[in-house]
Structures are given as C-alpha cells and as structure tokens.
C-alpha cells in the first residue's frame, strides 16, 4: 500500500504542534493517580471485609457441606464380602474414582472429536 500525503497539509500539522506547559496538567494527572490508588486500596479492603464476613457467617454450613461431600465421594461402589478384596479395591472402589474416570473419558473423547 502506498502512503501518499499532501506535503502542504503535513507542514501545517507540524506547524500547529505547540509545546504545552506541563505544570497544571502533570499535577492533575498525579492527583488522579493518587485518587485511583486510594479507590483501589479501598476496594480491596471492602472486598476483603465482605469475604471475611461471608466466611464468618458461612463457616458452619460450608464445613457441613464439605463433610457431606467427602462422605459422598468416599461411598464404595461395590461391597464385596471378602475383607481382603475390600481392602485391595479400597483406593478405586468409590464415587470419586468413577467421577475422575468419567472426566478422563470425556477429555479423551473431546480430543478425538476435535
């Protein structure tokens, strides 16, 4: 692509360029910068307080939910009568293993399709 500029216009743009005094402008920029920093800090403090309050009030229900979820994930899939077999299958004989295997299958299937 060729760039064709009108020399007269180019000269006009160059001549219209003024050297602007920095004093007032620089001060305003730094003041806004300081205000923005204060707003950011205030935002983080408020977010932290909200999070802390949520954790404080929801600690008991969250703990209960985590306990229930752990119990659910550890539920055995089969209940063999033989204690030795039960012991050997223990690492894979639970809901969480089933979920992990399902997830891996989905990822493999997705990769094969895409």
């Amino acid at each position, binding site marked *: 692509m060729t760039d064709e*500029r009108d020399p007269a216009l180019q000269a006009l743009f160059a*001549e219209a360029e003024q050297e602007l005094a920095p004093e007032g402008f620089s001060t305003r*920029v730094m003041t806004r*910068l300081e205000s923005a920093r204060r707003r950011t800090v205030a935002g983080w403090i408020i977010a932290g307080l909200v999070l802390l309050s949520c954790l404080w009030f929801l600690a008991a229900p969250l703990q209960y939910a985590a306990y229930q979820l752990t119990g659910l994930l550890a539920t055995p899939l089969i209940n063999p009568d033989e204690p030795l077999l039960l012991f050997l299958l223990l690492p894979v004989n639970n809901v969480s293993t089933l979920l992990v295997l399902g997830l891996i299958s989905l990822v493999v299937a997705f990769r094969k399709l895409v």
Partner: protein
Amino acid sequence: MSAAKDGYARSPEALVVGLARAGDRDAFAELVRRRQSGVRNLMRRLCSDVTLADDLAQQAFLQAWLKIRQLKKVNSFAGWLKRLAVTTWLQYLRKNDALRNADEYIEDAQAVRGVASTSGMALDLDRALARLPAHVRTCIVLSYHEGMTNNEVAVLTELPPGTVKSHIRRGTQKLQQYLSAYNETGRTEETP
C-alpha cells in the same frame, strides 16, 4: 524542585521508564512532564476539544501507569504511550456512541470547542478536523500528525487497510478544501 526530581529531569528516558516500571511515582511524574505535550497535542487534533483532549490525555497517562509493567522495552515508551492514547480515544468514541453519525461531514466551520490558549493555526486546523467524521479524522491525524503508514493506522484502528486508505484520501481532499486559505495566502488567513 527537589534534588531527586531534578535528578530525574536530567536522567535519560530509558532509566526513568525503568524506575517507573518498578513502581517509582516520581519517575512516572517525570515521564508525564516529558511526554504530556505530545499526547495532549495528539488528543487535541483527534477530538478538537481542548478540555476533552486534556481529560482523555489524563486517562491515557492513568492507563500508562496501570500497564507500565507490561512494557517490555523501555526504549519503546513513547510509541507505546501514543498507542495507549489512541486506544483511549477509540474507546471514548465507542463508549459515547460518537460514531453514530460517523459518515457525515459537518459544514459548520465553527465546530471546535474550548479553544482558549490555542494558537490561530492550531485552532484552524482543529476546526477543519472537527468537520471530518470521527474515523476519517482519526486516520488523518494518525497519518499526518503521527507519521504512521496506512498499514500501521489499519492495525491500530482495526479498520481494513482499504478503508484507511480511502478515509485518508477523502479526508485529505476535505482538509485541502477547508484549509484552502492557507495555501492561497501563504498561511496568513484563517479558514473561511
């Protein structure tokens, strides 16, 4: 001016940029002092409104402070800052729906606002630019004021290269028409 600030004023820009990137606010203040004129002039050409131009220039510097850690080469600060300024302008256009009548050329010769402390020639140029549609004006300013190639303008504005070329050609013709007095009388008269 304190000794530290005086030291910044005498330091090479790459060093000051490095310090600002490390979080030194005084170093950044020095960069603002050094680069404000260029950014403000660019914004004045882009928006043809002195107050808005200064406001957008301030926003560009705020963005620069927030993003300066992303700057990889300290020597490319000036170009990076100009790109941020143009992005700030384009965001302003999108946010304020300023492109709604983007294809219209304004025939009112007194289109520029907030002209205090603007020289006659700059005022005339800003008035003429204000009559161009926003996208045409942006392409013209980036080409003539910033000296960018058409491809660079296309990348920055995210417009197709053919459109940029067309905008610059049409904008140039219009500016030649609006600023014909400068060509006829050796740039001594104002735009009619």
